[in-house]
């Protein structure tokens, strides 16, 4: 699809366009975060704990007197970095192996499909939790675990696309022209499978962010005092019972906004990529 056509569709679909704009904004915040914030996200101020939102502290302060606005903004980078890294790994690995599996077929396809079936037998969050335990409690483990649990989606997508396109004229023509298997897969099959993959990536980025903050919420992966939305919500959980709502509301809204925009963008892109499946 050419850029101008994409722009045309985005202009027609305001919700998708708005989601795209907000996501660009969030990425900017992730990039510039630490330079934008008024306070050090780790600096405590013990004489000013649990202060409600004010002109000095827009989102209030937490139980250690840290500025919640600064923490929410700075956390964007970590959550987005984890999501982008994890989705990039799973998309690259899943598409490559999936396309090979669908194109080559045979025993390789049989084995890989069974492996993916077994992977899909585990509920996503439980699998993520167990994998983080295996790899050790760290940010890298969260990235690795998230990329492994998302691998099957890309594998299946690429496999179906490759298997379906193998018999189509232009691929046969490429084979007859003497292209190697690798060249057929990467130059002819994959570029044509891109639209559904892009949809999947957008949806997956939202899931990955949810997953990361969910793990942090139960005490896995990112560890305090690092600013991260899931950790902030977890730390504010008991304050919610005593009425200090700002400790949870702002990190929660940041989380919901990000996930919401990614899933809105994904749905919108799906309508553009495949008008028949319009929801």
């Amino acid at each position, binding site marked *: 699809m050419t850029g101008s056509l994409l722009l045309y569709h985005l202009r027609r679909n305001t919700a998708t366009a708005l989601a795209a704009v907000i996501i660009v904004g969030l990425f900017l915040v992730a990039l510039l975060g630490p330079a934008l914030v008024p306070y050090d996200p780790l600096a405590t101020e013990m004489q000013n704990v649990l202060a409600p939102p004010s002109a000095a502290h827009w989102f209030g302060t937490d139980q250690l007197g840290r500025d919640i606005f600064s923490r929410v903004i700075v956390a964007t980078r970590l959550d987005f970095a984890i999501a982008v890294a994890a989705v990039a790994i799973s998309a690259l690995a899943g598409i490559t192996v999936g396309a090979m599996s669908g194109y080559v077929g045979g025993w390789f396809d049989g084995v890989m499909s069974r492996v993916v079936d077994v992977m899909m037998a585990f*509920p996503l969050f*439980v699998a993520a939790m*167990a994998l983080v*335990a295996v790899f*050790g409690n760290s940010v890298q483990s969260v990235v690795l675990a998230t990329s492994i649990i998302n691998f099957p989606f890309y594998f299946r997508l690429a496999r179906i696309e490759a298997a379906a396109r193998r018999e189509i004229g232009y691929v046969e023509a490429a084979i007859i022209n003497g292209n190697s298997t690798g060249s057929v897969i990467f130059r002819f099959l994959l570029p044509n499978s891109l639209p559904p993959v892009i949809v999947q990536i957008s949806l997956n980025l939202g899931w990955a962010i949810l997953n990361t903050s969910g793990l942090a919420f139960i005490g896995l992966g990112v560890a305090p005092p690092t600013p991260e939305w899931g950790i902030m919500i977890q730390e504010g*959980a008991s304050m919610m019972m005593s009425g200090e709502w700002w400790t949870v*509301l702002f990190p*929660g809204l940041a989380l919901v906004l990000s*996930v*919401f925009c990614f899933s809105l963008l994904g749905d919108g892109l799906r309508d553009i990529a495949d008008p028949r499946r319009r929801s």
Partner: protein
Amino acid sequence: MKYRTLRLILWRLLMALPILFGVIVVTFVLIRALPGDPAIAYASGPSMDQEDIEAIRRAMGLDKSVFQQFLIYLSNIAHLNFGTSMITGQPVLQDFAERLPATIELAIVAFAMSLIVALPVGVLAAVYRDSWIDQLSRVITSISAAMPGFFFGLILIFIFYFVLSLAPEPIGRLSGWTIAPPTVTGFMTIDAALIGDWEVVREAIVKMLMPAASMAIFAVAPLMRMMRGGMIDALDSDYIKAARAYGVPGWKILLQYALPNAMLPVLATMGMVLSTMLGANIMIEKLFAWPGIGSYSVNALIGVDYAPVQAFVLIVAVLFVLMTLAIDILSAAIDPRYKLKG
């Protein structure tokens, strides 16, 4: 049931076996891959010397080859022996048996809640397409898809516990000063009803509302989407047009002809939702200090107590596979056009 269907079901059962075997292999590898020497972790007493650790290693079968260890693992599973939890000091099976009813009870309430919200709105959104109710269904779906259950739960706690004081303290199944009924089924509501203590039944139900709602929120989006989509497909089909042409009353078309056909895709989603609620509700159980298998397992994980974690992953995955299988077979039994996967 016809012979052909029966054969298909047997074939489908057979196809599930390699997946179940794969699940067992993965959980076996999982416990081997976890950091730390289980024998040393197990022998964490001050009086333990190298010899004792070796003895424990032998007792745990860690001196044998990996293949032998796998066979031992298989036989242990067959005997429902999942090892002993280091934190509680009890067999893992017993720990699970004590906590599973709490998880199931909560999951059932959450499942019912998500159906009550998702299905009627989904049907109405399909019948009155592009009306306000269709827009409402879009809004609900979007919120449900982006809202983490633990955040939603905290919002509920703030509104209903702190601001309105309507909800009880969001901790556990009963308040601290309520005497729990003697455990028969493990379901708090049923156990209390058995001794005729309706006050406790009421309290147990009220205590479940907020955690169940937090758990239900994620399920509303897929269920509503499927219900709406299935209903639109059904209403657009030829047999509905034919029924309309024959002058069949509208409500009858809707309930007798369209709805059963629209339920098929919803059924598959229901299976996914229910098994997720039974296994992946860890964050909600932890938030509400709900004494179920999810919070038990995550506490074990944080406490480097791996036997319960292994058992939890295994049980949940097996449950997932069986639920998918059951839904698949049920769909085939309901709809003759449905092709069994595999």
